[in-house]
């Protein structure tokens, strides 16, 4: 009997040892694999229990972690002026994921960036909780508010303001917008409900920042680039007289390219670039596109940033100027910003930046500095050159050409007395409604003042009827110029 009891002991001990083996396997040998498992949300949960760094504008937080006792997590992400910054900050949400700056700056904000390694090590010994770094943006709060106020509710529009000398983004606003706080709630069901409501808003995607993520036809605002291409070639200079017929057939087609029927273009059958650019005549660009050829356009657009990867630090959707299987007719259309020529609002702002800054585009950037919890500055991006878009001479020519639209052409409604604004408008036909109302994308992009450019401003209105678009784009541009120069 005792022998049996001893054997029972051996058997039970063996089973206990097997359990210890299993525990060792889970907690030591296989721990890494389990921690990396896709189903494992513990890292994310831990993040939600730690103070996350703030995102600051003018030193004031627009996104910050505040302590909460909702029983689920220690901190709740709170957004100040959420509608104003929704497309920049994005949201930090358990249920809906993390987007925009909250996602791009995650390593800084959570403190897991390698630059904060020392702080984490120190924290292990002092027992202090790891805190994330704060990120100050280049955004100017007043300009951001002005842009937000300038865009009428109900329009689908974006405003981008940058400093052409540094590439700093001073304002980037899009409407329609949403309250990021609604998506950052901890309750999964409430977050899902709010997400559904926000997704139903027409023209809004909570995942996309329209100023850098929407690709739309630039219309005539693209003529900045077409004209650069023309002036760079041996065929054209400021004095070249170009034919300006009311309409012209596309190569190998009975379809015609027309000048705007109500416009002033019709007054001259031939003109120099000054008149053509100011009145935004189309037909001369037929000739220009045929003379220069596709390769020249591909070259210029690439220098201006088309098709290139850019992080500001959000990832900017590359603008498109397709070069594959393009016919002469399609090239002519693309030369006036139609067909498959698709750009982001930021891309057209970069075009204005290039002209303002003697042909050099500075890399657009939104991060001013990153500050560790102990207020030590860990990162302060320096202005960086993005590309040489064109020569200073051509840039100077364009600068003078862009005076025309504001002084006597299509951008007159944006003029502000006392400020030398240079700009180019654009109207890209999208479709025609059944009652004949043309629906367009309306653009205006430019910079001011001409002698020492402080800002490059771009206004984009998507899917709007022609009259509203043209009038409002100019009006928004005017308000932005007034806001910048305190007029």
């Amino acid at each position: 009997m005792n022998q049996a009891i001893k054997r029972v002991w051996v058997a039970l001990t063996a089973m206990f040892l097997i359990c210890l083996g299993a525990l060792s396997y889970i907690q030591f040998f296989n721990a890494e694999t389990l921690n990396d498992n896709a189903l494992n949300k513990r890292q994310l949960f831990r993040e939600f229990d730690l103070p996350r760094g703030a995102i600051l504008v003018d030193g004031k937080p627009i996104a910050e972690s505040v302590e909460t006792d909702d029983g689920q997590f220690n901190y709740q992400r709170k957004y100040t002026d959420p509608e104003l910054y929704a497309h920049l900050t994005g949201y930090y949400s358990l249920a809906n994921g993390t987007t925009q700056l909250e996602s791009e700056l995650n390593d800084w904000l959570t403190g897991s960036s390698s630059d904060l390694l020392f702080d984490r090590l120190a924290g292990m010994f002092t027992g202090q909780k790891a805190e994330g770094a704060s990120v100050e943006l280049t955004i100017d709060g007043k300009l951001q508010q002005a842009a937000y106020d300038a865009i009428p509710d109900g329009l689908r529009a974006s405003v981008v303001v940058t400093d052409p000398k540094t590439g700093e983004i001073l304002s980037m606003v899009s409407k329609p917008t949403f309250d990021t706080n609604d998506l950052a709630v901890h309750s999964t069901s409430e977050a899902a409900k709010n997400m559904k409501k926000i997704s139903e808003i027409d023209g809004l995607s909570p995942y996309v920042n329209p100023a850098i993520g929407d690709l739309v036809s630039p219309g005539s605002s693209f003529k900045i680039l077409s004209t650069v291409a023309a002036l760079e070639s041996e065929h054209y200079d400021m004095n070249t007289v170009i034919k300006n017929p009311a309409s012209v057939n596309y190569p190998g087609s009975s379809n015609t390219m027309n000048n705007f029927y109500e416009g002033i273009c019709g007054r001259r059958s031939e003109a120099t670039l000054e008149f053509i650019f100011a009145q935004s005549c189309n037909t001369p660009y037929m000739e220009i596109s045929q003379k220069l050829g596709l390769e020249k356009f591909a070259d210029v657009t690439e220098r201006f940033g088309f098709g290139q990867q850019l992080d500001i630090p959000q990832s900017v959707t590359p603008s498109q100027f397709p070069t594959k299987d393009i016919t002469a007719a399609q090239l002519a259309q693309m030369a006036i910003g139609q067909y498959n020529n698709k750009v982001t609002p930021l891309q057209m702002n970069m075009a204005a930046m290039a002209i303002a800054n003697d042909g050099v585009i500075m890399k657009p950037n939104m991060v001013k500095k990153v500050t560790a919890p102990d207020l030590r500055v860990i990162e302060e991006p320096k202005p960086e050159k993005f590309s040489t878009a064109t020569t200073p001479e051509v840039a100077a020519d364009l600068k003078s050409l862009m005076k025309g639209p504001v002084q006597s052409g299509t951008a007159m409604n944006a003029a502000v007395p006392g400020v030398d604004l240079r700009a180019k408008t654009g109207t890209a036909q999208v479709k025609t409604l059944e009652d004949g109302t043309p629906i367009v994308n309306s653009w205006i992009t430019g910079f001011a003042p001409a002698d020492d450019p402080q800002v490059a401003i771009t206004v984009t209105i998507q899917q709007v009827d022609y009259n509203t678009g043209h009038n409002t784009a100019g009006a928004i541009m005017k308000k932005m110029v007034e806001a910048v120069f305190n007029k």
Partner: protein
Amino acid sequence: MTEVQTAPVPRRNLELLLLLLALCVGGAAFFLVGSATEDNDSKNFLIQMGIMGALALIIHVLLRIFAKYADPVILPITVALNSLGLAMIHRIDLAKGTSQSSRQLMWTAIAILVAALVLWAVKDHRILRRFTYIALLASIVLLLLPLIPFLGATINGARIWIHVGPFSLQPGELAKITLSIFFAGYLSSNRDLILMAGRKVGPLQLPRMRDMAPMVIAWLLSIGVLVVQRDLGSAILFFGLFILMIYVATARISWVIIGLLMVVVGGVFAALTMGHVERRVNVWLNAFDPEIYQARGGSAQIVEGLFGMADGGLFGTGLGGGSPYRVPLANSDMIIASFGEEIGLIGVTAIVLLFMLLVSRGLRAALGARDTFGKLLASGLAFTLGLQCVVIIGGVTRLIPLTGLATPFMAAGGSSLLANWIIIALLLLISHNARRPMSGIVGPTDEIATPSTSRLKDRKAVTNQ
């Protein structure tokens, strides 16, 4: 083979010292939980440990009076495990805003007081042998109680609960004890008949049916639990107890083999035919399949437990530093995973070793007991404790499918606490019986201790003649 007999020593002072140590372990756990979670109710832990200490002292004093030769290690280990369990339940409470720990403390008090009552009322475990068939009857009643309409209740898919006033009880927990008493009493009376009478088939000696009938009834009853009440864990436990008792009584490994074969056949049959068992097995085998992870009643519980333990790693996050509350049932079924996360592999190993030591001391009492009934009862009770631990730890670590067995003394739940504390009381009594000096007076139901098998065989030979 002769056993070296040393002069018996009570060792009650050692017990007192170890008890202090155990209370310090529990107190430290409470303190760490309080300081890590900034729980401002820090006086709480002094009160809790004070109550725990007072209760342990009652048992200690009773042992000094009634069973002064009882094993000095059993009580401190139990107190340490119980206190650690309380601390973890308190910690989960703080995170979830529940108040399970005060309930658990109340049940601890009830359990220890009942254990004290058992110590005082039973004094000598051999009395229990008189209740062999009453114990069988009690087992049947206890196991069938949850099936009575209005009284019984189904919680988490298992119909093993009854509602008594504001409490939910699992009467099956107490059946562990009554079944052990029955098996021990029956087998100690009939082992010779079972061993000797009957036909020999090949290498196996099959007993006569009538000698085995009560055993078979008890076995069928426990299997019935699995089928009717859908409680896989208890079924494994009862079946294990049955095999163990027969093995210890007969010392024939063939019975174990037959028993294990029956487990395998029964298990495969259950897995193939019974929905809930099949689901359990599927969840166990494909735990990391995202679909099964997200399914209702899927593998989220076990997988989250594994993630938690992996998160804790070697040293753990520290008590109050992790997030064990993310695991469903973190304070009951999954409490081992909670410990694994917060005190790491090192800490959870210490807990497993405590359980191992406790079970070893129980089996040591069986080894030393001077009567067959005591040997069988102590083996049965110690094995019950050990098997519970192994089955639940194995389940949490995904060695075997997870079952709803309670981790003894730790998991939140009153019935299990009560039953396991009674087991401790009985083991203490048997160990006292085993270690006390020979009195020289031998009662009618007493047997002389049979320390070596050779002597056992001799005696059998004599009986056979």
